């Protein structure tokens, strides 16, 4: 590529390298350092005057530093009279905060796009935006590439009996994404909804017949589930258990009669106006809202938030049929593992799934998420792409983790952008297979 330079930010150097290799170019020299006071400093080691420049920067565990680095790098390129600056964000940081939470939330993704345009970005390339509407946040063109064809190819080659597999959305908001993949693979889909604890009075609830009254909750053979398209269970302290599970209060009969009463008075419940609006927005996992004082705090807050976001008692509903099939739980971002684990347990124990595979584009896997997934017996495989960097140490420790390389897609998009060719065919699955 003549008159072009590719710069690699410090967030995901490995992916940057792969993209440069595919393009057959050397990464342009630049030094990315930090002053002792924590300020980021960038110096570009080559002339960029009148060049077509590309900056590859993803998110990572130090996302704010990554963003500052990108902004400074872009504005340095602008100052160095680059002809065009294209920011490549395989994972778009803050993309989960792309809409106003009901009460006075900031639309951070919009702010980040404003910052980037202000710094001098002329064009943005990204992969699987959390919401495609985010393209409208920018005043410059955005190319949102799709990983679905690559994920579909992986499923076809690696999931046995994939024709009978079912793709599962772990929350209603992701159903659209899931149906897209289901259509591409021409297989069925199902959906999981987790909501606040309901009283188990609904007639369509499947009935569980127990072989012994004290059967362990997670013993698959203990339940015979009647055929129904709704399968509900409870989440108690982060674990999926059967509907009439009672906590160790030592008062089983009391609990029972209480639930009978609740059947009688079910209609009175429904909706008083006391439901907090925040409860409704549980679809996207909330980020911890707490002051971060020290880096060591982050992990602790993450843990507490995981507990907070998982109030001890919830109802989980599977809509669809996964019995004796492989359940492929799909989402765009795999960060905290709790909802994935709950979905997997529910598919396996109550839905009767044969295997459970988790597929996500962005493997953020913060804190020890990967470890939790690794230790979860219900999950057979965890598939992510390399848009988000995963520590080599973490990666080698995990036996379930599969990382799909996205560099071919990104490199081809850069090449076509540089030569002014259409990228429409990159959305075409035929191109990738």
């Amino acid at each position, binding site marked *: 590529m003549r008159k072009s330079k590719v710069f690699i930010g410090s967030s995901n150097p490995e992916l940057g390298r792969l993209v440069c290799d595919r393009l057959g170019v050397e990464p342009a020299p630049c030094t990315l350092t930090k002053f002792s006071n924590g300020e980021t400093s960038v110096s570009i080691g080559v002339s960029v005057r009148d060049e077509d420049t590309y900056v590859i920067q993803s998110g990572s565990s130090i996302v704010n530093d990554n963003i500052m680095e990108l902004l400074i790098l872009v504005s340095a390129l602008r100052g160095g009279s680059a002809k065009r600056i294209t920011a490549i964000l395989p994972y778009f940081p803050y993309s989960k905060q*792309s*809409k*106003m939470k*009901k*009460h*006075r939330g900031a*639309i951070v*993704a*919009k702010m980040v796009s404003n910052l980037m345009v202000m710094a001098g970005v002329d064009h943005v390339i990204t992969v699987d935006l959390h*919401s*495609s*509407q*985010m*393209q*409208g*946040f920018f005043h410059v063109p*955005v190319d*949102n590439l799709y990983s679905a064809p690559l994920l579909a190819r992986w499923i076809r080659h690696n999931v046995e009996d994939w024709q009978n597999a079912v793709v599962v*959305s772990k*929350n*209603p*908001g992701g*159903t*659209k994404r*899931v*149906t897209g993949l289901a*259509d591409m693979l*021409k297989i*069925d*889909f*199902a*959906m999981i*909804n987790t*909501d*606040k604890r*309901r*009283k188990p009075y*609904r007639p*369509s609830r499947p009935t569980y017949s127990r072989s012994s009254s004290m059967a362990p909750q997670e013993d698959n053979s203990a339940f015979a589930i009647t055929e*129904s*398209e*709704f399968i509900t269970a409870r989440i108690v302290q982060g674990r999926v258990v059967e509907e009439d599970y009672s906590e160790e209060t030592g008062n089983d009969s009391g609990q029972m009669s209480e639930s009978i009463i609740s059947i009688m008075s*079910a*209609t009175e*419940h*429904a*909706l008083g*106006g006391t*439901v*907090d*609006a925040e409860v*409704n927005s549980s*679809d996207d996992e909330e980020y911890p809202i707490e002051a971060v004082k020290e880096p060591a705090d982050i992990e602790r807050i993450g843990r507490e938030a995981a507990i907070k976001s998982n109030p001890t008692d919830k109802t989980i*509903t599977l*809509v*669809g049929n996964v019995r004796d099939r492989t359940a492929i739980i799909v989402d765009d971002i795999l960060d905290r593992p709790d909802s994935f684990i709950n979905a997997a347990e529910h598919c396996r124990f109550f839905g009767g799934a044969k295997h459970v595979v988790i597929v996500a584009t962005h493997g953020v896997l913060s804190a020890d998420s990967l470890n939790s997934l690794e230790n979860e017996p219900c999950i057979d495989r965890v598939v992510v792409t390399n848009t988000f960097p995963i520590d080599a140490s973490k990666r080698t420790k995990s036996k379930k983790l599969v990382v799909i390389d996205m560099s071919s897609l990104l490199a081809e998009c850069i090449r076509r952008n540089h030569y002014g060719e*259409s*990228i*429409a065919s990159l*959305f075409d699955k035929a191109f990738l297979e």
Partner: protein
Amino acid sequence: MAANSIKLLAGNSHPELANLVSEKLGIPLCKVKVSRYANMETAVTIGESVRDEDVFILQTGSDSVNDHLMELLIMINACKTASARRITCVIPSFPYARQDKKDKSRAPITAKLMANMLQTAGCNHVITMDLHASQIQGFFDVPVDNLYAEPSVIRYIKENIDYSNAVIVSPDAGGAKRAAALADRLDLNFALIHKERPRPNEISRMVLVGDVRNKICILVDDMADTCGTLAKAAETLTQHNAESVIALVTHGILSGNAIERINSSKLTKVVCTNTVPLGDKMKVCPKLAIIDISATLAEAIRRLHNGESVSYLFTHAP
């Protein structure tokens, strides 16, 4: 400094709603004359002073969208040049909201263009209802209050439908979240219909996920335009032995031959809010019913003017 007051202006798109809001607020509509030149250009005359006033302009997207849009832009600009202190657009049904993403190569993001146009004209604040995608809030650099019809819809269900034996159904995958939220509030189950993309030499089929046997199905969506999806969904639900099918939509645009579709479909009832004028469609379609949301709009205007929190309206219908 003289206390400023609410000036409520209304475009021609939905006079009934304007009158309802003005009644609820107890504030008469400001005199505005909208006329057309012979070459069809729109001309606006504001009949009273708006200097230093808190101006609210109500205009919704309905038929002849583009004319109403121009009217709105000209009214905003007229108020701006007439030194209004703040100009708030009340747009119950946001036009072009469906063109909110580049879903195909080279597709325009017209909703973003709309946002830019409104801001360029001089709009300082936007009140709208049930945006097709809430990310549209981020298209604006000014605050956008996205109100929800949900509390009014819930009230309607509780007062008019025997919902103990009902199931909430989303007619497409994109609306699953909306349906799940409503099902959650009503403590009901929900189901989903997915239209498989047509493949060569194959008829696209509708897939129902969930159990609707002998149940009242409440189809929920944010808008009903040509009603093709709703009619097909009702057909699918009936095939799966649903007892009856009621559709609840926020924006009843009902363009084209929507009315004939509804009349000949398996839908027992179609309930929309009055964000979009229905005109005489009520007369020709006995299945239509209306939920009045003017109180929510009026309350939002009042709260905004007085600097009170609007978030109460997200969960409660006034």
